[in-house]
């Protein structure tokens, strides 16, 4: 393994990080528009407005960058970077085929869960650094939500790991069997819901509810810094969708997976991502307390039930 390979792999991850969220963002624009009987972006780049998000990026770069007087400037400035890193680093360990993975880590599932937790810190930094009441309140809400949903998320992931007997995502995909679609279903539901909440996507977007706390922790952000938050949010959708696809949908498993493995993986990821977008369009926002109760009284017990089920199943089959 040479330095070159490492550089190449790193660059590939960075490219994915830049491209996939944009594709997803474009898709969101179009899907949402069509669901609402609109056309969505049609101008930028010509064909169905394909360059809309690039244009957005350029626009963000040209916007005036305002740092409020009350802000804690270093914290305020670094928060977007920290936010970016959480899913950028998670992307490293997402496998697309058994060999197509940027960094083959021994316990990649744990790794992904660990680094995606960095986002909480970024949100708190943003809220604290802004020197704004909305931001602070939003950050608290975010943090509370993120930690609450992280519990069922981790429990659900543990169930998959247990079923496969491996902590590596690749290993789990390898051990995947179609029967999982059935007996891992509760875990999958938990995983999907918790992932959506982790991303603070609607209907779990109370922390950034613009009618209550404007944009929550991001209230004071403008220009490229704000863009980085958005970028990491969409990258997060990609990572979580990919995780769901790998753990529950079997990743690259499918007909002709020898050659088309990564296609299957991408397709499944896209399908999950679509569901995430779809939910956004269809569901109203949950109130903060409903949101917490839902996590602790529905998702956590469900995840624990799944754990018990998995353990029983594994013991039974072993």
């Amino acid at each position, binding site marked *: 393994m040479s330095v070159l390979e490492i550089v190449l792999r790193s660059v590939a991850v960075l490219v994915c990080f830049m491209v996939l969220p944009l594709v997803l963002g474009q898709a969101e624009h179009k899907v949402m528009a069509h669901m609402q009987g609109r056309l969505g972006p049609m101008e930028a780049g010509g064909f169905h407005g394909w360059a809309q998000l690039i244009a957005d990026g350029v626009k963000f770069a040209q916007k005036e960058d305002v740092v409020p007087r009350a802000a804690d400037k270093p914290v305020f400035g670094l928060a977007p*970077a920290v936010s970016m890193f959480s899913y950028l680093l998670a992307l490293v360990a997402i496998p697309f085929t058994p060999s197509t993975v940027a960094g083959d880590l021994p316990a990649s599932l744990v790794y992904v869960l660990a680094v995606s937790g960095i986002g909480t810190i970024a949100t708190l930094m943003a809220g604290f650094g802004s020197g704004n009441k909305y931001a602070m309140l939003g950050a608290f809400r975010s943090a509370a939500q993120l930690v609450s949903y992280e519990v069922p998320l981790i429990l659900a992931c543990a169930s998959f*790991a247990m079923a496969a007997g491996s902590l590596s995502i690749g290993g789990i995909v390898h051990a995947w069997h179609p029967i999982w679609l059935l007996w891992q279903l509760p875990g999958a539901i938990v995983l999907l819901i918790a992932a959506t909440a982790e991303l603070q996507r609607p209907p779990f977007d109370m922390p950034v509810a613009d009618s209550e706390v404007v944009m929550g922790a991001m209230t004071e952000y403008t220009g490229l810094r704000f863009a980085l938050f958005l970028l990491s949010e969409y990258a997060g959708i990609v990572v979580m969708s990919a995780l769901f696809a790998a753990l529950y949908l079997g990743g690259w498993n499918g007909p002709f997976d020898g050659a088309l493995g990564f296609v299957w993986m991408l397709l499944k990821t896209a399908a999950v991502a679509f569901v995430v977008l779809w939910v956004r369009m269809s569901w109203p926002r949950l109130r903060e307390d409903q949101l917490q109760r839902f996590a*602790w009284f529905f998702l956590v017990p469900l995840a624990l039930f799944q754990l018990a089920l998995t353990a029983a199943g594994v013991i039974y089959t072993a």
Partner: protein
Amino acid sequence: MNSGLLGYLVVLGVTLGGVGLFTAAMVVRRVLAPRAPSGAKLATYESGVDPSGGDWQQSGFRYVAYAFLYVVFAVDAVYLFPWALVLRTSGLGVASVVEMGIFILVLLVGLAHAARRGVLSWL
């Protein structure tokens, strides 16, 4: 060099790349973004009215309960992953299921108690 270490080297590379990316973005912002600060712009945003006080306000701090619950559950979830690995080991599997059952039961009792004491209810 084993593959595990290579994976972490990629992580390192991506980290450096990420730093580069962020730096580049900030440079671009510096170059492209206009700067025209004014008092009104730099004021804290509070839906357009004059800000009252600073950001360090007293507020209901019920979120702390979630933080505590999280610490309890998330840290204990750490034990689930090693368990996932040994579950198939003969002679250890059933015993570990019993142990984990007790462990999770304890957590559930704690959760039920917390709920009973109104930690999770709003207001």
